[in-house]
């Protein structure tokens, strides 16, 4: 065994999980070893949001987050949102509004939108832009993303 490896346990998408992690390993690398590929490393600097993961209810950049730090924490990824088979209202709204093209950045936008709507159920356009300013979409589906966030807010308000 690698002397630098560390044994960690954490709650991953609702399941107790134990893993051996290297000290240099980041959270995206750890998740990909568990076949969770929705969080993706793109810019590698925490600037694009493609690697967004929720750790203890806070969105983090998985490419900058040491895997060993999730020891004892709760980790939620995009793959968990439809765990009861149903898509979340945010996911439904992204489909209906066509709020993605290539889909590579979509996990991050959806997780950030969930976090936004938990804190602010009826955000204005400007609040949406401010909140999602840390996520980049090279296909530039931004107008449709703003529409999807508003649509999701409406769906959640009705339920």
């Amino acid at each position, binding site marked *: 065994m690698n002397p630098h490896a560390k044994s960690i346990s954490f709650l991953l998408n609702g399941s107790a999980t134990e893993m051996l992690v290297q000290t240099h390993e980041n959270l995206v690398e750890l998740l990909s070893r568990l076949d969770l590929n929705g969080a993706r490393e793109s810019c590698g600097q925490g600037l694009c949001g493609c690697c967004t993961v929720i750790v203890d209810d806070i969105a983090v950049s998985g490419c900058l987050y040491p895997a060993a730090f999730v020891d004892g924490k709760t980790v939620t990824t*995009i793959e968990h949102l439809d765990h009861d088979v149903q898509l979340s209202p945010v996911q439904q709204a992204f489909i209906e509004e066509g709020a993605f093209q*290539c*889909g590579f950045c979509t996990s991050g936008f959806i997780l950030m939108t969930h976090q936004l709507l938990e804190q602010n159920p009826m955000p204005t356009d400007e609040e949406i832009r401010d909140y999602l300013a840390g996520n980049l979409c*090279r*296909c530039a589906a*931004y107008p449709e993303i703003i529409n999807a966030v508003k649509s999701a807010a409406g769906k959640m308000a009705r339920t």
Partner: protein
Amino acid sequence: MTIHKPMPAGQVGRSLPRLEARAKVTGRADYVHNMRLPGMLMAKVVRSTVAHGRIVSIDTSAALQLKGVFAVYTGEDIRKIIPEPYYGPAFHDQPILALGKVRHVGEPVAVALAVDAHVAEQAAQLVEVVYEELPAVFDEVEAMDSKAVVHDVLKPAGTFPDLKHLHGKKNTNIALDFHLKRGDVERAFAGAAHVFEHEFHTQQVMHTPLEPMVSLAEPTRDGLTIHTASQSPSFVRIEIARLLGWPENKVQVKVPHLGGGFGAKLYIKLEALVAALALLTRRPVKWSLTMEEQFYTISKHATTFRIKSAVDGAGKVTGRSCTVYWNGGAYADIGPRVTQKSGFTAPGPYDIENVAIDSYSLYTNRPPAGALRGFGIPQLVWAYESHTDLIARELNIDPVEFRRNNILREGRPQATGTAMKDAAIDLVLEKVAERMNWSAPFDRGSGTIRRGRGVGIGFKASISPTTSVAFVNIYADGSCALYMSTVDMGQGSDTAMAQIVAEVLQVQAENVRVIHPDTDVTPYDMATLGSRSTFHMGNAVKLAAEDARQKLEAMARSVGVPEGSNLETREIFKKKYGMQAGNVMGVGSYIPTYKSPDSVTGMSDNITPFWMIGGTGVEIEVDTETGHVKLTKLINAADMGRPLNPHIVETQLSGAAIMQLGFTMFENMEFDAGQVTNASFADYKIPGIHDIPPDIENHIVLAEQGGGPFGAKGVGESATFGVSPAIANAIHDAVGVRLTDLPLTAESVLRGIRLKAGNPIGD
């Protein structure tokens, strides 16, 4: 041109969501980025630190001693597998790993392999390379007659007959020159009431797909399988087979979804190295670029464009000469094709009797340039629409009216002599003007905030002639699948093509299964580029679906089902085979007619199967104290024939325009001695959600493309055309400052304002 009524309610013309929508919102869509194979090695390349140099030595010993390193290879090792390891679509000029010489900073020189990507990365850093530096050339105009010569000898690929004359040419950086002469431009200048001459520049930029370029090769029993984030699986197979001296059928290329392409993932990029490494190691090998490495791999041409126009007393352009220099970087990639295929539209969508075009593709010691969403057209439109606006202002003619008076109308010959057909240039211009409310009074602002507005319109020919092939398979239960090598990189081709199959076979588009490119299974397609798929593959898919329908009808008749019977498909199969068994396979193959331009005059009466037209209008605010430009309104209009999926088409328009907004306002690869000093998202800004204007409209003009599938044609690039000049024209309108270099930074606007006020800012 026929103007159609709004779409009938069928499968074509429906705005259904992308077929893979659920996979994309749940994080489960397949990308090569995600792929891992048992026993897989990770590759990390050692890159050149000099722009031009002779390799004196490469010392791999320290890297090889690192624990966990599987192997370290150089160009000489590649030669054991591929004796002539030079690749490229237009020229065979790019070595898989450098041999003897390096020609740009970032060029791959050696490669380290390990199971752990971090170990491979550390090993790559331990490789020591000694270079003897050579004089370098970076500027495209200087490269015309520079003493620094990037390639000792030109090596055009055999693929293109019009490049053959360049074979073996020495002591030149001109990879390709294209010339067109129509009428007598010198006489037009001599007899003109006014002559205008300007020079414009564009900067080098990068596609930055968020899924960085990635390829994975695995050796199979008697060949190779390459999983690659590529826009051109068929070309990869052909080129890898050529390099290895193998028949095509030993190379399998598979492409799942792409996390963006925009031209970055075209032809052949990482595939040659992973193929060689998989054969050297007999292990699967994956090579994933970082965002930084992408900047050293492919980019968009920087250009210099000198444009000169003769105008008569009535405001009619009577002559135009265009000299365009394309900075192709160290390797040709597809750059020389840009020089010609886009070069012939350099005078713009105007009816001009006398035209001369000289277009040069130059080798320099910068990272290579290739195709980027528009294939050179945005660089041309930038210049000719800025120039057009300057002429109109100088002559005191309204810029829209000036364009109207000169516009290239249906049936009139384009610069090549090809008569315009199904090209709604005038409708696009009028739509932009209408949505801009152009004839109404305009609020010009006051104090330190000045308002301006501008328009730009451009056109593009389709790359020709190219081939697409498709199969449509009807299963015995009546369900069906489409087999094609078009790559869905986000543009929605899976969905649009499924709609074509659904329309022909009268099924729901959602129920058409689209088989992703796998060259063992899906047939040939030239590539997913230049907005060619809707027209070319769309036609092949339509033909394949019609062929399947006819074969199914023939089968029905062969088992005694009368014509016009509404017997279910599954029952026809049961009658034929006695049980749920069998297939009906429809095949469609499409190549349009084309005539290549005359090698001396550049003339052709059939230069393209279709034209793409895009126009943009903007309103802006300029802060005269800071030079900051705020875009308040962005109107995009395009002719893409009849849209197959209107909503997806609209998002293609806004996406293209916003991407071009980045190339217009801030994106710029900055260099120091050939090194990109801002090769990361920390320093190279792409458009974010705050950069989009509050008011954005996308308009599809009512038009129909003759010969297009259900009247459709491509749209992925059209909304890029007019953006840059529209904004520069609006800045001129607002503060009287004309910018001729992209990007249009606040600094350059402020310098212009201060210069005009007689209070220039020092350097």
